[in-house]
Structure formats: C-alpha cells, structure tokens
C-alpha cells in the first residue's frame, strides 16, 4: 500500500517469503490450477455429450458463425498483449502507460463480451438454439457462458484496478476521495453497458436496413437516452481522470496488476481451448 520501500524493487523475488515467490502470485497460480480442473470438467461434459447426440439435435455447424468467433478470439488474444504491456508499465512505474494499457485491455474485453452477447442473441432468436431445447444448447451455453462470466469478472477487476490508480497518496487528507471512487465506478459501468447497447443497436439497425444515413438517423432517434447517458458518463470519466496531486499507486503495486494479469491470460488460454474443441472441431 505505501511506497516507503527503499531501493529498487525486484519484481521476481520477494525476500519475505521462503521461496522468494510473492504470496499473491502463488495464490493466483494455485487458484488457476483449481480453475483448470473446473473448466476441464465443463469442457469434458461438452465433449462427451457431443459424441452422443440424440435424434433431432441441430448440427453445430449449422448454428455456429466461425467468422464472428474467429474475430472475437483474435480480439481476446490482443487484449492479453495489452495486459502484458500493462504489467510491464507498472513495473517501470509508468502510470500513464499503465492506464492506457488497462483501458485498451478493458476495451478489447468488452468487444469480446459484445460479440458473445450478439452470438447468443443470434443463436436463440435466429437459429432457435436455446439452453433448454437441446443438449447442444445446454452444454454450449453453459460452457461459453461460464467463460463469459470469467471474462466479465476480469473486465470488472481491470476496471477497479484502473480506478484504483487514481486513489490519492494520503487519503486521510482527502475526505471526498471515496465518494469520487464510487462515482468513478458508476460512471465506468454506465459507459461500458451503454456503449455495448449502442454498438449492438447500430449493428442490428444495419442488419435490418443496411448501412446508410437514414438508418443512422433512425438509430439516433431510437437510442437518444442511451446516447445522452453515454456522453455524460464518458465526460464524467474524463473529469474524474484529470490530474489531482500525487497518487498512491506505484511500482509496489505491480504484484497486484501482475496477479490480475495471470488471471486474464488464463481466461484467454481457456478460450483458445474452447475455440478449438467447441468451434474448430466441428469444421474438421
């Protein structure tokens, strides 16, 4: 928490532990081991049921849209790159770069989530694959939905970490920092949710009437409240992010960012496995 540690910090060795591995890093590795078993069981369920389809189950190939999923997989991979840059930035005590990398990671994570929302909507309403009407729907939505929850938790964590970088160094001298903190969270969540809704709205509009100016005008009219809300919350975010004295977030917090990074990369790797065995396998 404090930055009174003297001298250079060795980010790969913590002298206070028996092994030199920081406690938090060890905890995260152990948790990920547990999570491996968790996803292992879920993916196995899907693979087992895939081999025994009852009559009448739609074929996965007729449902999936491999182009969209390839795109979102690529985006998620790129978010891992930005996450790695974020860890690197804070280890060099570069706050500006850290914030930019975190925001990009969040942005990419949200694109992935948006693609999933679009995909789920498409499957349910266009392809008529629901979680209850077939075993494919059951295993597919449960597995990818659980992964989506992991990504959402990761985005939430990244967001809180980003906001944490604005906490003043001496909070006792700044009694209103906590209120600002809460406002920051609310504004950020509003931005994410409204942004996603708007983008999905545009996509839906273009699907319905094609990409032309008339569609956009129609859209601006239909989503006026959302547009207004998004503009206000983005403005709030800008205002809350303005420089305001020294912050209590530096190199010593690198381990917190790194721990989060481990989680994010893991969720990414799980998606690569899911993309391979749930999607690509169907096209062999």
């Amino acid at each position, binding site marked *: 928490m404090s930055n009174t540690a003297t001298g250079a910090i060795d980010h790969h060795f913590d002298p206070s532990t028996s092994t030199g591995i920081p*406690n938090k890093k*060890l*905890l995260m590795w152990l948790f990920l081991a*547990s999570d491996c078993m968790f996803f292992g*069981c*879920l993916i196995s369920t899907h693979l087992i049921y895939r081999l025994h389809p009852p009559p009448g189950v739609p074929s996965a190939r007729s449902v999936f849209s491999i182009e969209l999923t390839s795109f979102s997989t690529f985006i998620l991979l790129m978010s891992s790159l930005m996450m790695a840059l974020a860890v690197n930035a804070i280890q060099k005590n570069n706050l500006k770069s850290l914030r930019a990398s975190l925001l990009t990671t969040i942005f990419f994570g949200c694109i992935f989530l948006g693609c999933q929302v679009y995909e789920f909507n498409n499957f349910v309403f266009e392809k008529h694959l629901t979680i*209850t009407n077939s075993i494919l729907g059951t295993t597919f939505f449960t597995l990818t939905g659980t992964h989506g929850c992991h990504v959402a938790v990761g985005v939430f964590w990244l967001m809180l970490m980003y906001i944490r970088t604005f906490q003043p160094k001496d909070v006792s001298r700044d009694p209103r920092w906590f209120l600002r903190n809460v406002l920051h969270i609310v504004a950020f969540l509003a931005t994410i949710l409204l942004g996603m809704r708007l983008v999905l709205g545009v996509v839906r509009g273009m699907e319905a009437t094609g990409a032309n100016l008339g569609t956009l005008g129609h859209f601006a009219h239909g989503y006026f409240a959302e547009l207004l809300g998004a503009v206000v919350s983005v403005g709030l975010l800008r205002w809350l992010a303005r420089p305001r004295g020294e912050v209590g977030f530096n190199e010593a917090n690198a381990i917190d960012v790194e721990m989060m990074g481990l989680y994010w990369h893991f969720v990414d790797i799980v998606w690569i496995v899911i993309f391979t065995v749930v999607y690509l396998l169907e096209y062999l």
Partner: protein
Amino acid sequence: MADAIAKSDFLGGEEKAAPKSLVLWRPTAKTGLISWLTTVDHKRIGFLYGISALFFFLVGGVEALLIRLQLAVPNNHVLTSTQYNEMFTMHATTMIFLAIMPLSAAFFNFIMPLQIGARDVAFPRLNAFSFWTFLAGAIIVNLGWFLKSGAPDAGWFSYAPLSTRTYTPGHALDMWVMGIQLLGVASIAASLNFIGTIINLRAPGMTMMRLPVFTWMTLVTAFLIVLAFPAITIALVELMMDRLFGTNFFEVSNGGMPILWTHLFWVFGHPEVYILILPGMGIISEILPTFSRKPLFGYPIVVFSGASIGFLGFGVWSHHMFTTGMGTMGTAAFAFTTMAIAVPTGVKIFNWIGTMWGGHLKMRTPMMFALGFIWLFMLGGFSGVMHAAAPADSQQHNSYFVVAHFHYVLIGGSLFSLLAGIHYWFPLMFGRKVSEFWGKLSFWVIFLGFNTTFFPLHFVGLDGMPRRTFTYDANMGWNQGNLVSTIGAFILGLGVAIYFGVMIYTFFKGERTTKDPWDARTLEWSLPNPPPEYNYRVIPTVHTRDDWWYEKHHQAEVAAEKARHGAEEAAHGGIHMPFQSIYPFTAGIGILIGAIGIAVVDANPDPHVIVGAKLAVTLVGAFIMIVSIYLWSLEGNEGYHLHPEDEEGHS
C-alpha cells in the same frame, strides 16, 4: 524472516490503527463479539471451526442414533420412510462436510502455522472469509429442517436422475446443492491459503523435508481439495442449471446422461475420502513419536506415502461404480489402482509400528486413541481391499458391508485420530489437561461402543441387507445383528458424551499444565500455553527435524541465537500484526443471503415479472458480497507493530 518486517506492505500503519475514512475503519477490539466477528488470528479461526464442527458432530450423532433406533427391530415405526431418507442424507452430509472436514480445518488453522514457525497464515482475511463462507453453507444445508420443504433426502451423493426436478421437486435439494457449493468455495479458499502458507511462510531452516508430518499431510490434503472440489462444483452447477433453468444435463429424454453425475461426483468423492483421512494420519504421526519417545520411523517414507496416496487418490474413483457396467477394461483398471493405493497406506502402518518398536511407550490418553486408530483403520482397510476386487464388490455393493467398511475408516480412522488430536493439543490450546482416568474411560467406552455398533454390520451386510432402506422384515435373519448394532450405537453415544463432558469440565476447571506437558518434539510446543496472539516472540531458526527436541538439548546455543534475532527484529520495528477486518464477515452474510435467494425463495410463476423476489434477494446478496470484497481490497493488508514484554521466560 526478519525481512518480512521490511516488506513494503507492512510499513503502512506504524503502530496505529489510523482511520483513513469511515468505510476503511479497522476494528481493534480484542475481546467480545466484535473481536470474534472481525478476527484474522489463525488460532481464533481454528476455534471457530472447531466449535462449529463439534456442534454439527453432535447434530450428526443424534441423526445417527435415530437411524439406529429405527433399525433396532424389524418393521419399526420410529421414523417414516421420508424422515429416514432425510436422516441418512443429512447424517452423511453433516458428518463429512460439517464435522470431520471442519474439525480437520480447525487443526490446520491452529496447529500448522505454529509447526512451521509462522505468525499467521499467508492471507489472514481470506482465512476468516473461508470460515464465514463455511458457516453460510452449513446453515443453508440445514435450513430445510426448519422449513416446510423438509431436509434434503436424496442421499449425500444425490445421484441423478433421483436428484432432478422430476423426482425430487421442492427446495430441499436446492438447499443441499447450494450448501455444498458454498462449502466447496470455503474449502478451496482455505486450502489455497494453507498451501501458500506452508510453501511461503516457513521459518528459516524449515526445509520441506523438516516439516512436521502433520503439516505435510495438511499440504497434501489442501492440494486434494483444490484439485478435487472443482469436479463437484461443476456437477452441482449442472444439476442446479437443470433444476432452476430446465437444462438437459441429466435429462434422459433430451440426450442427458445421469452416469455423468456419478462420474463427476466420484471424481470428487474419492479424493474426498483421502481429504478426510490424511489429516488424521498426520495427527497420528505426531502423537506416536511423542509418546514412544522416538523420532518417527522412516520420515521420508511416511511423507512420500502420504503424497502418493494423494496422487493415486485421483485414479480410483470408478471403484464406486463397478456395478454400472463400465466394461471389463475399465473395471480391471480401477480394481488395479484401488489395490495399488492400499500399498502406501500399508507402508504407513508399518512405519507407525516401527516408531513404537523399542520405544519407551507412555500410555496416555492421546496414545490410546492413536493405537485405537491404527487397529480400527487397519480393519477398515482390509474390508476396503475386499471392495477393490470387482467380483466381490458386486456382491457387497450397496449392502451394510460397505456401511461397516466406511465407518471403520471414518470413525475408527478419521474420528479417532481427531479425538486423539484434541486430547493431545488441548494443553497447548487452553493450558489445561484432561484427567487421565476420565480420558481413558471415554476411550474404552467409545472403542467398545464403536465395535459393537459396526462389527455386526459386516455380517448383516454379507447376509444381504441393503443400505438406505428404512425397515426390514423379521424373517431375513438380520434381527440379531441390527439389535446389537443399535445397543452399540448408544454405548458409542455415551462414550462421546463422556468425552465432551470431560472436555467441557476441563476447559473450566481442569488441572493447569506447564509448557510442553508431553515432552513433545515439534515446534508448537516451544510456545507458552495458550500461545500469545503473535505466536513467536522471535521467529525460530530451525536446525533439524523435530526442532523443539533439538532446542531442549541445545539450550545455550538457541538462547544466544534467539537474542540475536530478537534484536534484529526489534530494530525493524517489532512484531508485525495484521489489522482485524469486518469485511470477510459481511461478505459471508452477502453469500448467505444470495444463497437463500437461489435455493429457498420461490420463483415468481408469472413470466412477465423480470425481477421477482427470488432474483431480488439473490442480487441483494451478491451486491453485499461484491461491495464487501471491494472494501476488503481497498482497506489493504496493513498492520501494526507489537513490542511484547518478555513473558515467555516466566511461563
């Protein structure tokens, strides 16, 4: 370890609990209710686990007595068939998840950090969170007794499709599912913490091969929990999805396969068996050397046997499923691995015998329980190997022979070792000692009662009496065995009553003891009893295995070393203590509310209501949990410094 003080996290609150703002208030009460709700001290959390476990142990015991009462004579009507189903479901669930596991966790918490020379676990607040989540799960599982839904009644394994909505409607099973889910979260969180502690917080010189065996078994058990519980988590998620949202995981008409539940359950369930017994093996490996006045015979072999039991434990689950028609290959493979896992277990038995061989045996109460453990656990092991032979098992399957077997390993094994552990460490925990007469009396009554209860069940089982059937006819030839067994159960109940009566008496009025009353060998006995909040005034430097024994025989050398290290530590600001925190407790409250929303509140049948009472309660609980965890991370892992007077010298 002196470097721990220089850790950047630690320099935040220099000897003060400075309020940064209202939400980041750190409680400082050292006595009273608030101090227990906000405690992060591993010893206090150990007590909380212990008290809860003993309470649920008594609840489970009463359930067992009711079961035995019902089976005492043929065509009995003490319980209805439904009540009987509830009893055997809740007896097993309670004893496994709410009695034996938390009692083991109590010892992990209290003893393990002391044995490795640490001042607390790696994540003190996470440790508190584990306990409160455990309690939330325990409450949810037992809530059905007080509601009109009744208690869960699908067995502790809740096999699909019996446990699906079609065959078990109502909220009782939802509560079971949610409760076990929470207990899993609590166990995994606690285990991550224990592994981190053992790997990272060992005192200088405490190499892995110098760890006391109990600590080693804690490590193996924690790994088992971390890797085995996700399987039941997924199984429960799938069952919950089926029950709440109508998915098809176990819905045969839509392609679901109930056998999947059985596999997932036992992928967890068999490692769980070792989760229950390995801590006990660790306790026995502490007690036998102390009362034989010899080091443990073949320490590395005991450790590696424990670890290989852990590994093999993941490869034997299908021996619970020999009768499901897996095919010759699968059956043969699992029969083989099951026989293989008996080898390291047998090796340990020989090591314990080797430890006692030629020792100066002191027959004190903990030693009696430890010897009872070896004898009874061996009997349970023999019948276990009999199950490993698949053809024989298909005859014994689902009979009382199996019931006799696992009570020999769970009571004769786990419970005897835990009772031994309570006796053994009671002086360290409370500074008082149980009278030898009453201790030994309770041992003999429990030993007698236990064997009278469960030995006849072997024969009743081989004569074909099926498990989980609420009554039987008089002409089956099972009458005598069942009556003897019921009488035995009440003797066992009497023994347990004596045991706990004596414990409670001793807690208030027992004979006070000095430090290290057993002349023991491991580090925890170097502490005054009860140990101070900070455990070690000076973090010990470990020279050998059984380091306390070494200290007792190299007093001058160790005293000089302690003085030197003590001065170094004082120069770094003194003993660092973590602040207490209320947020683990409030997070537990949030989890409890959320679980009630999911499992207890009725869904609104009107599809137009988007946020009904069910979703609302769940969201409120989730919100409380998320806010608590966020504030918990905001307040940070800061602490304060202590400068205790030299109190150790006087005790």
